[in-house]
């Protein structure tokens, strides 16, 4: 059975004009990502991975080419239309969590649904609680963001990315701020979500992470250098178990 295409890039180019010069951040990138894939996008800084992430997240539009997200062409969309699209189809996980300060876990997770008029306050809360339980924070619903550890905050952020049941989860260096132990905890969580059938795109410069994903796209100078399936996906849970215990806290 043919798998559903969630993301399709057709010769996407993105140019920035810096002063007199034109910088070609993306020089014709094409790929398809199918439902249920766990893709890492790797590249050194300046390789265009941030620009690509912005394209995938509908925060930006291509200069030329087309990006089709879950069947919707994005390039010609207005800012408001893209905001709505992000709200319904994308879950973001950022490197530095980006939780609202002095706000409880549940309220943080509810945030995307606040911009979706189809949810009333009871449905919002139900969905937020469910998402928090899915990331293992069912017992910390009312904790405020400043009372949590980095790992807990990132779990809240992941719950926030899950709450709108997105077509794709976009993680931007989601383990970059965490120590090794907590990073593996996050990877365990991402693998669990992958196992549940979620589509995940994980942007990172850390090659280690690629071993835990199902597919790896390497960028260099705005072009795809490598696009490989990973035949031997390592288990993050096993790696976590093998870590020395005193690494954390």
């Amino acid at each position, binding site marked *: 059975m043919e798998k559903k295409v969630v993301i399709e890039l057709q010769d996407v180019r993105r140019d920035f004009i810096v002063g007199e010069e034109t910088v070609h951040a993306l020089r014709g990138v094409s790929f398809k990502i199918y439902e249920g894939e766990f893709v890492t996008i790797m590249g050194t800084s300046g390789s265009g991975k941030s620009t690509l992430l*912005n394209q995938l*997240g509908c*925060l*930006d539009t291509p200069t030329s080419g087309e990006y089709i997200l879950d069947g919707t062409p994005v390039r010609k969309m207005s*800012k*408001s239309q893209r*905001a*709505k699209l*992000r*709200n*319904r189809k994308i879950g*973001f996980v*950022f490197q530095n969590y*980006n939780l*609202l300060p*002095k*706000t409880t876990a549940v309220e943080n997770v509810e*945030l*995307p649904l*606040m*911009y*979706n*008029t189809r949810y009333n306050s009871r449905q919002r809360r139900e969905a937020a609680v469910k998402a928090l339980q899915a990331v293992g924070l069912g017992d910390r619903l009312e904790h405020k963001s400043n009372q949590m550890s980095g790992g807990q905050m990132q779990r809240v952020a992941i719950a*926030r990315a899950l709450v*709108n049941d997105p077509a794709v989860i976009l993680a931007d260096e989601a383990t970059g701020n965490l120590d090794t132990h907590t990073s593996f905890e996050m990877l365990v969580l991402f693998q669990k979500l992958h196992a549940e059938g979620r589509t995940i795109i994980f942007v990172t410069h850390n090659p280690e992470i690629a071993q835990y994903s199902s597919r790896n796209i390497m960028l260099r100078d705005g072009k795809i250098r490598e696009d490989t399936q990973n035949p031997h996906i390592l288990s993050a849970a096993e790696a976590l178990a093998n870590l020395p215990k005193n690494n954390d806290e």
Partner: protein
Amino acid sequence: MSFLNLMKVAIRAIAANKFRSFLSMLGIIIGVAAVIIMMAIGQGSKESVRQNIQQMGTNVLTIRPGADRRGGVRRDPSEMQTLKPIDYETILKEKKFVTYVSPEVTASGQAIYGANNTTTSLYGEGIDYFDIKQWPVIKGEEFTEEDIRKSAKVCVVGKTIIDELFPDGAEPVGKMIRFKSIPFRIVGVLKPKGYNSWGMDQDNVIIAPYTTVMKRLLAQTYYSNIVCSAITEEMSNDAIDELTQILRTTHKLKDDQEDDFTIRSQQEMMETMTSTMDTITIILVVAAAFSLLVAGIGIMNIMLVSVTERTKEIGLRMSVGARGIDISNQFLIESIMISITGGIIGVIVGWTGTYVCELFALPTSIPLWSIIVSFAVCTVIGVGFGYFPAQKAANMDPIEAIRYE
């Protein structure tokens, strides 16, 4: 985002920076309180002037000799002698819109009784005068038609005269007082009126028959004024037309000649007075309103700081699906809430301030519309001065905003 949620977010943002929010509210509080107090004082003074004039009767018309000339034009003395007995008699005969008529002559000088004396004004009046001014005699009697015919040396006096000339509390009615060496017998005492709004003691007055004053005191054949009353306040203008017609006829004025007399209604006087008060009120309120403008700029300033400070939050909200309008609404509602809360506190402070002014014997009256206007102005300030910061927030690029440090 729904309005209720926007409100919640705004309340949270304000509560997160209580002191800062309070400081930016302070401008609004002071501005609104100032506007309300100024309006209350203005309105209060206006009402007290109006009441004073109303006491004198709003349907009173005063005919003065001479054309209506204002400014520093010096008048020919002959011009001041145009009101003659023939005018009075004709008015009496032909009046339709006028109820009461009284000629008036005035003199000032000293009134003496025994060892006491006081400087006062002597008004020579007809018997209608008491009806025109609605000024009853509370002790003794008014002088009569007979007294006028005979130029009798009788008078009624105001309370101040009694206080000055009879300090021991003796019974004044029946006593003889002298004014410029002419003896007058007191036949009545007028009801006290007190001071009028421009500080004149209305009770420092002696009223005698106009004939007596003209013949025995001033030796003149013309009147200083003629005082009339229209049937009602509304008929004042008809009465003025009628009197103008009568006087132009008796004065034998040709069509192209100006009136050689001036008719003033009390209503007109009230309008002049209240319009003066209005001008003062407007100046005060405008001054206070400027402080509201400054307060608005203060709010804009704080909102701009708040927007910059929360760039990251804005970036996050945008990346999870907030549209520009959601962000701009969020900040607009915040600035409206600051200004309206400030407005409410300002109204309370204004009320208290007005009450304090009243304790210091300033006449005040809070017009309800001043409160409504204050609220409207606060909302306008909230929207007006919140708009630019809100737009700034809404137009942020989510990519840059989310990475802002």
